């Protein structure tokens, strides 16, 4: 037992807090764990691979003629819309998987280690940005194959992609919160869908707002999803940066500022 020789207390430097640098390092290690898990179980990536392909094809060909006259001129409208819808829906899985993960014994070990309390959560959420990236790239790729040529250029498309990934990561904190407080993984899925379904459909993602009744327009216009979709459209289609981008970013930061602390607190309180 040479390496298991224990180190007595007095030789240790003991601190009752974790520094910011340590918290970041712990979170990155936990993100590495998340990536390893994705690599070990690639079947987890089915949803982020298939959903963008199926949804993009389906929505474009079903609604294209009715809304924009033809499929070609619907593409600049629908691709940003479907992108936001798909990637944000993907972030529900983060909450579901977190719930499943937390039921396993390994989380007991994480809790008993002298690491930042936020690390197991932040790490899991960070690793999932890989999923959002896959979904984003696939949506743009399918759009390109169908004839979508964004006028904003590759650079602005890349910025738009980063914006969507960042906002989805922020929103995933909401689902992480549900994941921590819910009793089962399937209930996380249920609650999250109920929240997200109206949010993504009662927006400007698929249909021009002008065609909706007034009372609905009011909601659609304040819906943060609409702002995010508009920001992506502006960036990708014309390369312009407007208020929608700023509002989206502020919204994302506010979500993290609220949900990260309450999620960590709920996580620590759980038995």
């Amino acid at each position, binding site marked *: *037992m*040479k*390496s*298991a*020789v*224990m*180190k*007595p*207390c*007095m030789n*240790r430097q*003991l*601190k*009752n*807090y*974790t520094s910011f640098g*340590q918290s970041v390092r*712990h979170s990155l*290690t*936990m993100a*590495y*764990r998340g990536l*390893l*898990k994705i690599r*070990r*179980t690639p079947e987890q990536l089915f949803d982020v691979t298939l959903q963008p392909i199926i949804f993009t094809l389906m929505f474009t060909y079903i609604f294209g003629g009715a809304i924009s006259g033809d499929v070609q001129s619907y593409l600049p409208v629908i691709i940003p819309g479907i992108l936001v819808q798909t990637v944000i829906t993907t972030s529900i899985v983060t909450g579901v998987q977190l719930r499943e993960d937390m039921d*396993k*014994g*390994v*989380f*007991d*070990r*994480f*809790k*008993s*280690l*002298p*690491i930042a309390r936020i*690390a197991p959560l932040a790490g899991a959420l960070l690793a999932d940005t890989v999923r959002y990236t896959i979904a984003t790239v696939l949506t743009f790729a399918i759009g390109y194959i169908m004839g979508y040529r964004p006028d904003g250029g590759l650079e602005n498309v890349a910025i738009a992609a980063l914006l969507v990934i960042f906002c989805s990561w922020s929103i995933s904190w909401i689902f992480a919160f549900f994941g921590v407080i819910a009793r089962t993984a399937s209930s996380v899925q249920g609650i999250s869908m109920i929240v997200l379904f109206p949010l993504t459909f009662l927006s400007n993602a698929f249909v021009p707002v002008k065609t909706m009744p007034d009372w609905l327009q009011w909601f659609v216009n304040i819906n943060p999803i609409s702002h995010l979709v508009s920001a992506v459209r502006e960036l990708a289609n014309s390369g312009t940066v407007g208020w929608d981008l700023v509002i989206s970013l502020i919204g994302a930061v506010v979500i993290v500022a609220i949900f990260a602390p309450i999620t960590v607190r709920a996580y620590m309180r759980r*038995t």
Partner: protein
Amino acid sequence: MNHVNKGQMAPDNGDWAVEAHGLVKVFGENRAVDGVNLNVRTGTIYGVLGPNGAGKTTTIRMLATLLRPDAGSARVFGYDAVKESQIVRQLIGVTGQYASVDESLSATENLVIFSRLLGLGRAEARRKSEELLEEFGLTEAAKRPLKNFSGGMRRRLDLAASLIAQPPLIFLDEPTTGLDPRTRAQMWDTIRRLVKTGSTVLLTTQYLEEADQLADRIAVIDHGRVVAEGTVDELKASVGTSSLQLRVQNMQDLEIARLTVEQVLNIQSAVSDEAGKITAPMANTDKVTDLLIALREAGIRLTEMSVQKPTLDEVFLTITGHGVKEDSSPESFESNKEEVTI
């Protein structure tokens, strides 16, 4: 084992690795832990013995900062488990009842991640993991996913993970439950070696034999309370020794057999007439040979001879006045029972 490494061990509070006073945890209506007091001396193995649902795991989880006590205080090497939890976590290793390792990753990946979380560098983490795998005989299986690991291998990996930071206090929650006898003996050896290096071990168990084999002191816990505490010998003395059971072939011999037993063993025995059975406490095992020879010389033929060790059931009966509850696993009694039939 108290003397081992005492020179270098000098925790701030003198000699106590764990001090718990009046710990309480209530789940709904159920007082899972109801005022537990525990004091564990540094460098010893302390056993918490009790049936399923007695509150063993809940107690350990509170001491290991995984659960917040509803009342009472818990100190680890003098540090408060609630207020100074992050310090306590730097001094303990926890091996849970169910393996607390990542199922979807390999053994190496598990240990490397835990090492990195504990602040080891990349190369250092890899070296440490290899070392521990080697020590626990897992090198060959290091790259395989844990799904294919046997229960014993999983427990060993779990224990290895608890030792990365070389903690001075290790919690083992039922370390051998569900293991086969050979793997159990290996686990015991590992735990003994651990204490030789100076660590303190607090383990829970359902098996009287395990506590007997490993622990310096034992607390018997039932319905969330400590019902008995002391050294293994003290506890055994309170329960009584193993008993010898003899069955004679001819009922006429019963009385002579009983006299022979009492003469040779120098004790009182109990006789049940219908079955022709004699039960006697077996204080001195050596004398059993003399007894058997004496019985043969007297021409008394036996149909059966068995030795019954005290079981957890009897410990409970003696201490609490009631037996172990129904839901505890039956194998815990059988493992303590050795029968020799002639």
